[in-house]
């Protein structure tokens, strides 16, 4: 039984990481209606930039700042080159564009910093911690706390600031937002920048866990089912979805794995999400629009 809980908690904490990536999606989806497949590439790019700077002896916070700036520049570029020309095109088109984008970013990141694996040490020891008779990874807890802080910050940004307000307006109805004089372009840049920031944080945590390497960009594939379950438009949804996926996939791996063979965690989330979709197409927290004809 304890073992079960260990697995469960471990899964939940891993889920937090998924959630972190997923939040980036939700932000962008809310503001520009784009399912940003390049989010994973952004995670990779930011983390790779950061770690490479560290290795070149750049102090931590400076490296962090530079990486962040890089992400902002990226956001600007994306808005100029991808979003603006593709405005009012079908979402599928935008999605495919982000596919292309992810290729560009990955290619660029590796061309710039090389493809080898970089270790990343954030100075959080990863030795397990005894909590109520269960062994939990300090690092996971740290990650969880970071995520919580991040979410708190974001929700403040959205609910308290003018920017957040205009962002919500854009999310609700771009045209109306335009009508009241909100500058879509600015909002988009902002959102993509924030998403980049979230990506950076996620990248650091993931990087510290698995080493900074190409596979980071594949977390995007985990985030998709998370979003499906949580709903594309809800940050809290992303969190919950992440936790569900994290926990269930670990449990499945541990309990189901031996039965049907290991390595199932890379498709299990999808099957889960699929079943979920059939029951509740709009996800847990997403709301479904009435079709007007």
């Amino acid at each position, binding site marked *: 039984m304890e073992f079960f809980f260990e697995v469960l908690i471990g899964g939940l904490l891993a889920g937090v990481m998924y959630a972190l990536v997923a939040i980036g999606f939700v932000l962008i989806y809310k503001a520009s209606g784009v399912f940003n497949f390049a989010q994973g590439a952004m995670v990779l790019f930011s983390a790779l930039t950061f770690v490479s700077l560290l290795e070149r002896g750049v102090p931590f916070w400076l490296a962090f700042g530079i990486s962040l700036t890089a992400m902002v520049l990226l956001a600007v570029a994306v808005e100029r080159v991808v979003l603006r020309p*593709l405005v009012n095109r079908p979402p599928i088109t935008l999605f*495919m564009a982000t596919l292309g984008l992810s290729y560009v970013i990955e290619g660029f990141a590796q061309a710039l910093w090389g493809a080898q694996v970089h270790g990343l040490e954030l100075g959080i020891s990863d030795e397990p911690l005894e909590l109520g008779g269960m062994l939990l990874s300090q690092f996971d807890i740290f990650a969880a706390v970071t995520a919580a802080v991040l979410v708190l910050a974001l929700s403040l940004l959205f609910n308290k600031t003018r920017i957040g307000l205009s962002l919500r307006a854009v999310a609700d109805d771009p045209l109306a937002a335009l009508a009241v004089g909100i500058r879509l372009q600015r909002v988009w840049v902002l959102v993509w920048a924030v998403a980049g920031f979230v990506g950076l944080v996620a990248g650091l945590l993931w990087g510290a866990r698995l080493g900074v390497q190409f596979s980071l960009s594949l977390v995007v594939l985990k985030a998709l089912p998370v979003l499906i379950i949580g709903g594309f438009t809800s940050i809290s949804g992303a969190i919950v979805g992440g936790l569900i996926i994290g926990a269930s996939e670990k449990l499945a791996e541990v309990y189901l794995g031996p039965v049907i063979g290991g390595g199932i965690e890379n498709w299990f989330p999808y099957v889960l999400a699929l079943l979920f979709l059939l029951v509740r197409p709009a996800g847990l927290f997403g709301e479904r629009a009435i079709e007007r004809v």
Partner: protein
Amino acid sequence: MFYQEAGQFSTRYAQDRRVFRLRQDRYGLVALLLLAFVGVPYLGNDYWFSAILIPFLVLSLAGLGLNLLTGYAGQLSLGSAAFMAVGAFATYNVELRVPGSPLLLSMALGGGVAALVAVLFGLPSLRIKGFYLLVSTLAAQFFVTWALTRFSWFSNNSASGVISAPRLEILGVDLSSPVGRYLLTLGVVVTLFWLGKNLVRSELGRNWMAVRDRDTAAAVMGIALLKTKLLAFAISGFFLGVAGALWAFTYLGTVEPHGFDLNRSFQILFIIIIGGLGSILGNFLGAAFMVLFPVLLSNLVALLPAGLIDAGQMENLQKMAFGALIIVFLVKEPEGLARLWKTFREQARVWPLRY
């Protein structure tokens, strides 16, 4: 300019329905087929057959498969490679377990199995739309590759699920030589393209486009959405399956499940984006681009001073180039390369006038 349309008019609908209504187009097609079936085998060398032409043909077919689903029926899919894998492994198993079953039959059966799998993962398409559907196709992508590696039965217990080509012979004619494999591939591809062209011009094709363009209106007119979508998945699956079999046996010779990973799916999606969504010709153009572009790029790089760009960078360069191209095409020419040809043809028909 070369069009002489005087006297080319229809007195029966059958004439009007022909794929190539204009004589000039028909002659062009015949010339092309002659070149492909007779000319190329004499002119081409083994490098061209094995490294350029065969992959080009197979990728065109795969593109067609995905284009039917995405370009015509409007159902986005990232699981193409999975269906190719199913086709390849199914064909392999038919050949393995049904001794003496003719090669083409095995391929058809392989395609059939792929079609079934595709339908299975297409089922959610009734409830979910747009990129929600990605989940279903990605599930297919991951599940299939997993299953094929996990259960060694599929690969006849070979290590890491590697399978290798059966004897390539039809009616006793051995086709294992490069030119033989080329002709085999060409034959299959041409036949399936003919089929595909007919499909998209048939009522089913119209229904696909209807569902793609306005599914509510389609339903209101009595088009059965689920049937139409599932047929799209099934037929797309079949084409991809056969393409997979060709990829494994006439191109690579031996293949493992991871030869059909997510990147392959992306590659095929890129083919149809570059070539042209909702176009038959586009699949050829896109595939040609996909095959020739890397060659071109490496030749360009070769012109640069040595050591400036090493092999590793080469790959990244390619990645960036492809990504950028996708964006450029989506922005500038959403109808892809096929559009260019279409415009040219329309121009030629009214030359020297503007319209």
